[in-house]
């Protein structure tokens, strides 16, 4: 199977590695092969190489089954790659650590803990004194818009609220990189938009490095500095696109901006092309 290179356009251009060396995450020739049955192997990721700069908001965009979540799990240290290496700040990733904070589509909150208990969990584990951890956590809960819900249990919250708690819980232990695995994928469109706006507001304050997995083109363009487009079977990087849009980004302004619209249209067209390539082979 050959992959037809996308046409470079005015706004969509592949990025070469000419950036200064402030790389926080380096992924080098990572492959992931799952054994689906005794004779058949499924190649989820094939020789992925990617460098992520400190403070960048990078989205990994691709159809379902392209291995984009697997790539995130490898960076998180939750999954070991079959071959290749991933590094954070020059150190090989051998397992999970508090320098990389995951936020999952499934929220994965601790249901036996209250909102406050969930958010305090990380800092307490890191040895922060209870009073201090509580003060920080209350501030974070307020920041994600859940003031007044500190003593609620996850079961009492809606999906959007749960994801806000999950974000606060991860921010609470100050990871250097946020790993977001389709965090808004399980939410309705309205809630999703609100959370995207709030995430941008929070991110624009401290510019933490974010690796954000999504299958939504709008979401990727709206949030990111850089969009990594993947194709499936086997999972490969198809294109890396710089999103050159001003910040802070406001949704109502951006939706009317022709540059934003062009990014979305160009990326969607590339998806269609890769679908055709996929079905022709």
């Amino acid at each position: 199977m050959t992959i037809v290179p996308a046409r470079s356009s005015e706004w969509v251009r592949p990025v070469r590695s000419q950036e200064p060396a402030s790389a926080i995450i380096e992924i080098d020739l990572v492959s992931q092969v799952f054994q689906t049955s005794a004779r058949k192997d499924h190649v989820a990721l094939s020789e992925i190489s990617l460098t992520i700069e400190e403070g960048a908001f990078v989205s990994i965009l691709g159809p379902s089954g392209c291995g984009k979540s697997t790539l995130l799990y490898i960076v998180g240290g939750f999954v070991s790659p079959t071959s290749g290496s991933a590094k954070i700040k020059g150190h090989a990733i051998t397992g999970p650590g508090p320098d990389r904070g995951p936020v999952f589509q499934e929220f994965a909150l601790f249901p036996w803990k209250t909102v406050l208990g969930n958010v305090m969990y990380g800092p307490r584990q890191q040895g922060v004194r209870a009073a201090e951890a509580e003060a920080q956590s209350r501030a974070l809960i307020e920041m994600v818009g859940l003031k007044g819900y500190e003593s609620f249990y996850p079961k009492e919250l809606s999906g959007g609220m749960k994801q806000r708690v999950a974000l606060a819980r991860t921010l609470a232990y100050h990871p250097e990189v946020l790993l977001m695995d389709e965090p808004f994928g399980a939410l309705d469109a309205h809630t999703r938009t609100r959370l995207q706006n709030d995430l941008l507001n929070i991110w624009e304050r401290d510019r933490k490095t974010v690796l954000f997995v999504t299958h939504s083109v709008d979401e990727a363009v709206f949030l990111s500095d850089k969009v990594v487009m993947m194709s499936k079977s086997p999972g490969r990087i198809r294109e890396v696109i710089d999103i050159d849009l001003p910040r802070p980004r406001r949704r109502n302004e951006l939706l009317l901006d022709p540059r934003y619209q062009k990014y979305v249209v160009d990326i969607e067209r590339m998806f269609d092309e890769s679908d055709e390539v996929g079905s022709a082979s």
Partner: protein
Amino acid sequence: MMSSATLLRRAAPVLACIGLLAVWQVASLALKNDSLPTATEAIRAIPDILGDKESLINILASLRRMAIGFGVAVLVSIPLGLLMGRSRGVAAFFNPLLMVIYPVPKAALMPIIMLWLGVGDVTKTLVIFLGVSLPVIYHSFEGAKAVEEKMLWSGAAMGLSPAQRLVRIVLPAALPEILTGCRTGLVLALITMITSEMIARQSGAGNILFNALDMGQYDTVFAMIIIVGAMGICLDAIFERVRARLVRWSEPQFDMPLSFS
């Protein structure tokens, strides 16, 4: 103020008991059979049993064996079940063993155990222990297996070691399921307590029951059945209170999410 619906719901168990006793009374009067005393005769025999020092000592000895058997079984079975649920190796080792023991009625093992350990407390407590262990192991195993991977990953990212994750994430997350197993275990503890005393006739509540049966004191037999049944109801009610407190966070009354994103 209680509404009539609530009142009816509260009164339902009492009404059920009264109904059962009424049917019993009528059936017994109709059949005129010595081995089926009337409900009133059986109830009248209860104070005699509970007032008798000898019987009371026997019943308390039974409860003590049951408490020890149940307690030790829970303490051993929960960690084992959790480990099996999270480690394929541990599960592969213990699963066949448990599958062999599971269908065997624990009372059927008693004659052999009696040969080894005698007819005393140790044998009976061991049988109770065996009866309680299996459902608790099974439910702990299932509960631990069902713990969401991503929840464990979240804990790992916060720096929890595998042992800490087992105690601080798997255990609380599996607690509702574990307690379901413990509740089954509690009822089984009561059943094995009586059957063990039925086989090793030396002391205990079961012994009173079967001695009375041998002597044709049918009112005592039925009085003991009522006492054992009441013990079961009380223990279950106490356990349910404790359970509801421990897993309040997973109770369905919290199942109504607020409409706010």
